[in-house]
C-alpha cells in the first residue's frame, strides 16, 4: 500500500467514526449545506452567467445564445445544449482533453433537471417557425473541485439562466433584449451515504469515503423532475422515500435562497 492509500484510509476511517457519532468533518449537521455564495452576471460577454461557490467548490456557468435550426420534431421550440468542462485547473485528478464520463454525466444531470422541469419556456424561443430558433448553450466551467459538483453546477446553471437576456438586438431582431422566459426553477440536491446515514452536500473527503450518492431534482411545486444514483454502492430500497422527502425539503430552502439573491440583483 502506498503512503497515499494509507492516508486516504485513515481519513476515511475518521469520517466514518465521526458520522457514527452524528458529526461531520467540518462540523456541519447531516442535512446542512456548506456556505453558498452566488454571484450573478460575472461574465458580461455572456447572455447570462453565474458563479456559485458551495464551500470551496467553485463553478462558473455561462449562457450563450445563437440562432440555429430547430429539431425536426419540435419546429417551434428553442434548443438547449448543456456542456461541462472538468478543466485540470480545478483538481489534480482532472485531465485535459474532451469531456470524460464524469463530465458527461454531470452535464446530462444538469440538463435533465432543466428539461424535466420545463424550466425554460422553449416556445418563446422560436424566431421563424420551422426555420430559426434560439439555441441556448449552457456551459459549465468547474474552477475548484471540493465535492458536490452536481449541486453547484445545477445551481450555477439555473442562476445563469435567471440572469440571462435574449440578445435580440445583437442578431438583428427588431425587439429589445428581454429576460429569458422561465417556467420553473428546478433545484438539485445530493446526499451521500456513509455508514447508512445520508448526508447532504458531501465535501470531497466525504465523497471519497462514501460509496453511493443520490441526486434528486425537484420543481417549485415539490415534484420530482430528475434523479440519478451515482457511485458503486447500493441503496436499500426502503430508505429511498426518506431521502426523497428530505430532498424535497432541502430543494425548497435552496430555491428560496437562490430567488432571494436573484431578486436582490434585479432591484
Amino acid at each position: 500500500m502506498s503512503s497515499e492509500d494509507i492516508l486516504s484510509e485513515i481519513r476515511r476511517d475518521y469520517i466514518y467514526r465521526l458520522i457514527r457519532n452524528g458529526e461531520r468533518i467540518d462540523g456541519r449537521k447531516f442535512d446542512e449545506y456548506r456556505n453558498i455564495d452566488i454571484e450573478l452576471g460575472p461574465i458580461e460577454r455572456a447572455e447570462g452567467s453565474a458563479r456559485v461557490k458551495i464551500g470551496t467548490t467553485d463553478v462558473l456557468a455561462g449562457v450563450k445564445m445563437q440562432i440555429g435550426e430547430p429539431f425536426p420534431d419540435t419546429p417551434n421550440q428553442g434548443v438547449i445544449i448543456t456542456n461541462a468542462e472538468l478543466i485540470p485547473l480545478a483538481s489534480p485528478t482532472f485531465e485535459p482533453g474532451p469531456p470524460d464520463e464524469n463530465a458527461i454525466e454531470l452535464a446530462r444531470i444538469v440538463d435533465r433537471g432543466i428539461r424535466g422541469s420545463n424550466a425554460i419556456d422553449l416556445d418563446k424561443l422560436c424566431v421563424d417557425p420551422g426555420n430559426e430558433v434560439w439555441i441556448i448553450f449552457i456551459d459549465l466551467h468547474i474552477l475548484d473541485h471540493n465535492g458536490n459538483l452536481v449541486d453547484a453546477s445545477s445551481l450555477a446553471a439555473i442562476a445563469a439562466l435567471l440572469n440571462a437576456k435574449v440578445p435580440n438586438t445583437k442578431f438583428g431582431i427588431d425587439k429589445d433584449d428581454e429576460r429569458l422566459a422561465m417556467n420553473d426553477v428546478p433545484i438539485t440536491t445530493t446526499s451521500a451515504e456513509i455508514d447508512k446515514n445520508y448526508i447532504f452536500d458531501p465535501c470531497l473527503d466525504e465523497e471519497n469515503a462514501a460509496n453511493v450518492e443520490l441526486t434528486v431534482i425537484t420543481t417549485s411545486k415539490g415534484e420530482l423532475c430528475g434523479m440519478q444514483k451515482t457511485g458503486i454502492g447500493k441503496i436499500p430500497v426502503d430508505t429511498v422515500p426518506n431521502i426523497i422527502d428530505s430532498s424535497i425539503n432541502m430543494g425548497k430552502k435552496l430555491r428560496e435562497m437562490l430567488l432571494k439573491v436573484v431578486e436582490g440583483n434585479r432591484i
Partner: protein
Amino acid sequence: MQSKREMKIEEKPERLIVDGVRLDGRKKDEIRPIKIEAGVMNRADGSCYIEWGKNKIIAAVYGPREVHPRHLQETYRAIIRYRYNMASFAVDERRKPGPDRRSIEISKVSREAIEPVLMLEQYPRSSIDVFVEVLQADAGTRAAGITAASVALADAGIPMKNLVSAISVGKVDGEVVLDLDKKEDNFGDADMPVAMIVDSGDVTLLQMDGVLTKDEFMEALELAKKGCKYIYDIQRECLISKYKKVNSD
C-alpha cells in the same frame, strides 16, 4: 453525407392508454415478452442474448484478463469496464457508429449497477470487460442490457454475490406503468430505469427523467420492485437451463 430530407415525424397518438389497456394490449403492470439465452457466443468467456419486446441485445463478458495499459491496473482488485453500444441500424434513423454522450453515461451507470455484486478482490490487477451491444432498440435498453450483462457474468463464471435485475417504470398519459415501450418512452411523461439486487432489496441503478409527484414515485418504485422480481426469475431460469444443458451434453 448530410441528410437532405428528414424522415417523417411520428405523431403522438391521442391516447396511449385506453380503458386501462396500453397500445400494445398490455395492462399497466404487464411486462413485454422476454426471451433470454445464456452462452450464445463462441469467443467470449460468457454471454447472453435477450429479446425484450423488440429490443435485441447481446451481452458478452471477457475476463478476468490482463489490463492494458498497465497504469489502469488496481493492486487489490479487478477493474470492470462496461461498454454499452448501439449498432448503427438499431434505431429508426441510422446513427453514426461509436460512443455518444448518451451511451457513455449509460455505460457508467450500468457499470455502477453491476459492480456491487461482483467479488473483485479475487482478481487483483485484472479486468472484467462487459460489452453490451444493442442490435435493435425499443426503449428500456439500459435495463435489458444490465439484465443480460448480469447473466453473461454468471455464464462467464465470475464470482458474484447475486444477480442484478433491471427494468424501467414510467408515467404515460398520467398513469404509472411498468416497462415502457418505444412509443410510451417517446410520448410519455416520465421514465425511471431501476436495477436491484432482488434478494436484499438493494437498488443499484436509479435514474429518472421527466416529472413525477412524490406519490407517483412511490407507486413507480413499488412497480419496479415487482418488475425486478419477475426479471430475476427469468434470469435464474435461464441460467438453470443453461447449466442443465451443459451437464446433459
